[in-house]
């Protein structure tokens, strides 16, 4: 009865696929009744209204003459704001009321679950034949739906109804991500939400107060970095007279979203877990390259010398964060957001803690080049092909950016019951980070309180940064991650502009062999790498691993990935 994610979910998916195929007929007949009488009532009305609609330009937020009911399902995050009225449920969300008022679109949630449970419940309910009108799905689900032919065509809806804002966001990467949403015959099947890929760029976070205590400079080269790690582990950087610290934070997964080894590998020119363009222009798996072997031998050396935690292979992100907060470790590779969490907690626990952000150090005279993924795709708006109003999905996507405009700032507040975490589809703004950074810094330099910020979040950041400048320590996390020139995004964009990055080449859905063998190959990789670092296998084990990896499906995956790459070359 009880399934435990992983393999269980996979079998659910398999059955889901079968069920969907079997149910496709009944879907057709059941859908109109599912979307309610309001829709069918409005169908003739919109037909008669269409001639007049053609005369005037199509309004991205135009109001339907009759209510249009849109069935959806929701994975609700817990609202971050503490001002949300207690007991408010997602179907009472202020944004939905406003949406109805503005466009006459009425959202009905068939169900809502906490965000973490969404995938499970979604797959089950799809398998039992309930397909909502508008959905907000991940890339894997998108590809499955595309295969099964249950997605509605958004080409015209996007062309005619997408607001200038949404169109601008889709053009941010030259339309590359939007193009990934097209079917073989060029139909647009989804509206993607993606963010600036540079947000994945790796940097080093170091405790400056510890550097001072051990008398070292900010590391410029890998050798410098090694000296810092050594001093942090052995020279009592926290000056409490005890040997209770180690050099570099590392969690058990070498390729994760934080506190992992990506930055270390990248510094040494290694890009495991990614496909990067090789010398012959074809993509090659970073796991198999000699740079990775070199990096592993360095990590093994660090482990032997006590620069890594003895128990790193057993620590998840929470345990590593515990160590950081407790002041056991003062250096970690990572992305721009660390001050927002967990470095803010480190400062809460120890006000003396001072963090600096630096680019990856150089190695053998070559600057450390961080990996930047080709795409940073979030979720995708799709519609059921039986849904009569695909443009309603586009209007709903237009609606959220509209609500972040200044005139709604006082209305759309958590205290008024506007919970943005519950509003879907919410296409994210890929330019937000950069625009806010530039505008906030401009406003700060001229001390211009009347600055016209493009995004509501920009105005908020400006206020936070001013509070921090006036000594409010609680504002440090947001300010130092997003606004400070020497902080998270400040350093990230500096590296981006210097061009010291490597782009990964593959951004497609998992290939057939990846689906079949990817998990076991990943396990082989993780186990081998961990053993090498812990010293229970010699570094030369790597050569055998590469052979095995290639034989056990790696070669097939590489070929498939290159097929995709040939069809989708990087510009």
């Amino acid at each position, binding site marked *: 009865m009880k399934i435990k994610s992983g393999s269980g979910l996979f079998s659910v998916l398999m059955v889901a696929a079968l069920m969907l195929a079997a149910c496709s007929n009944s879907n057709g007949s059941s859908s109109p009744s599912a979307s309610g009488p309001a829709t069918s009532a409005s169908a003739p009305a919109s037909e008669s209204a269409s001639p007049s609609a053609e005369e005037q330009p199509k309004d991205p937020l135009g109001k339907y003459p009759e209510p249009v009911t849109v069935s959806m399902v929701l994975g609700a995050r817990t609202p971050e704001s503490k001002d949300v009225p207690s007991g408010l449920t997602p179907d009472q969300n202020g944004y939905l009321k406003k949406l109805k008022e503005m466009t006459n679109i009425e959202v009905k949630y068939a*169900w809502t679950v*906490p965000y*973490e449970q969404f995938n499970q419940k979604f797959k089950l309910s799809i398998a039992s034949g309930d397909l909502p009108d508008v959905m907000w799905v991940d890339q894997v689900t998108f590809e499955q739906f595309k295969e099964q032919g249950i997605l509605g065509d958004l080409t015209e809806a996007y062309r005619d109804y997408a607001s200038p804002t949404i169109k601008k966001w889709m053009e941010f990467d030259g339309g590359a991500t939007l193009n990934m949403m097209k079917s073989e015959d060029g139909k647009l099947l989804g509206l993607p939400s993606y*963010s600036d890929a540079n*947000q994945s760029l790796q940097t080093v976070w170091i405790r400056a107060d510890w550097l001072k205590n051990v008398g070292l400079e900010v590391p410029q080269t890998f050798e410098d970095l090694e000296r810092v790690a050594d001093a942090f582990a052995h020279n009592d950087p926290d000056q409490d007279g005890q040997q209770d610290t180690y050099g570099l934070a590392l969690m058990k997964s070498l390729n994760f979203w934080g506190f992992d080894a990506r930055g270390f590998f990248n510094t040494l020119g290694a890009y495991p877990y990614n496909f990067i363009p090789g010398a012959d222009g074809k993509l090659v798996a970073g796991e198999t390259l000699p740079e990775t072997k070199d990096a592993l031998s360095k990590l093994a050396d660090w482990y032997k010398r006590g620069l890594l935690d003895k128990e790193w292979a057993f620590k998840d992100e929470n345990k590593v964060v*515990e160590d950081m907060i407790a002041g056991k470790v003062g250096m970690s590779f990572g992305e721009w957001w660390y001050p927002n969490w967990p470095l803010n*907690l480190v400062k809460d626990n120890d006000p003396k803690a001072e963090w600096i952000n630096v680019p990856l150090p150089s190695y053998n005279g070559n600057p450390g080049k961080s990996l930047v*993924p080709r795409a940073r795709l979030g979720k995708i708006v799709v519609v059921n092909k039986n849904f009569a109003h695909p443009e309603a999905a586009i209007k709903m996507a237009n609606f959220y950016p509209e609500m972040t405009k200044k005139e709604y700032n006082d209305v759309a507040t958590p205290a008024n019951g506007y919970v943005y975490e519950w509003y879907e589809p919410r296409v994210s703004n890929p330019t937000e980070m950069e625009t806010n950074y530039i505008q906030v810094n401009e406003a700060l330099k001229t001390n211009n309180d009347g600055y016209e910020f493009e995004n509501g979040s920009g105005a908020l950041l400006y206020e936070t940064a001013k509070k921090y400048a006036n000594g409010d320590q609680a504002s440090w996390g947001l300010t130092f991650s997003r606004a400070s020139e020497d902080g998270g995004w400040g350093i990230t964009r500096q590296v981006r502009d210097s061009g010291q990055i490597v782009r990964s080449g593959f951004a497609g859905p998992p290939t057939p062999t990846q689906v079949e063998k990817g998990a076991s190959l990943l396990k082989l990789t993780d186990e081998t790498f961990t053993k090498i670092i812990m010293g229970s296998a010699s570094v030369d084990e790597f050569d055998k691993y590469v052979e095995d990896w290639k034989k056990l499906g790696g070669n097939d995956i590489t070929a498939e990935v290159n097929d995709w790459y040939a069809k989708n070359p990087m510009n």
Partner: protein
Amino acid sequence: MPFRRMAFSRQLFIVINSIVLASLFVLGLLPFIHLLSVSLSSNIAALSNQVKLWPVGFTFEAYRFLGQKPEFLDSLVVSLQRVVLGTAINMALVVMAAYPLSKEVERFRLRTLYVWFFAVTMFLGGGLIPTYIVVKETGIMDSIWALILPGALSVWHMVMLLNFFRSVPKDLEEAAIVDGAGQLKILARIYLPISLPAIATILLFTLVGHWNSWFDGILYMNSPSHYPLQSYLYTLVTKINIEAISTEDLGALNRLSEKTLRSAQIFLGALPIMVVYPFLQRYFIKGITVGSVKE
């Protein structure tokens, strides 16, 4: 027998046995003490892993905040409803199914057929999706019945009780028949009192089962406000699945750092069932059939 007059081997056994049991007890108790200490500590102390078995920076903040959190109290009410209603239904069905099936084939002709009818479900389940569809199509989705009816009869418990009933001496039933009692009366006045240890065991299993199950709540409830307590707690402790961190994930991560609050809720969630245990305990010890009939 007083300890001193026992044989040495017996004394040794008692000492070692006590030590082993006591350490098991401590092992079981420590996590709860730790949980309680964390829930009573300041959040930053809990986050930096300073709290072991005694609160650091003592505060009731987590419990105070919890009192204002409707989700926790709502789900507690759902859980209590489920436990009371569900256990009552489960027990009634188990007893009523086990009793006739405990009779011999001569007295109940189709007994074997019925036993197989039940037993087959122990080996073959409908599977997740068909069960989900059944719940959906019967229209009990999103109601408390979706948590109770699909598992209303535990065949495993029924077989346990059935075997217990069969071990009851037949002479007792025959004597009752001679005295003019009907089957219902025999069940209520003879079998049930004699079977108290078995009933108590099954009652406890059912109770704990209902209290602890979380998966069906997540499956069948269409809104988190209908979740039983354990489903709600589960959503607190699951890790967020992140591939590339977004600004929203950052908010979620910051909330994950509310460690004291989480501990307080888990502690309160485990408390009621811990309180029930000692009260049912005494029924386990008594084997009642001993001495009821002279052979």
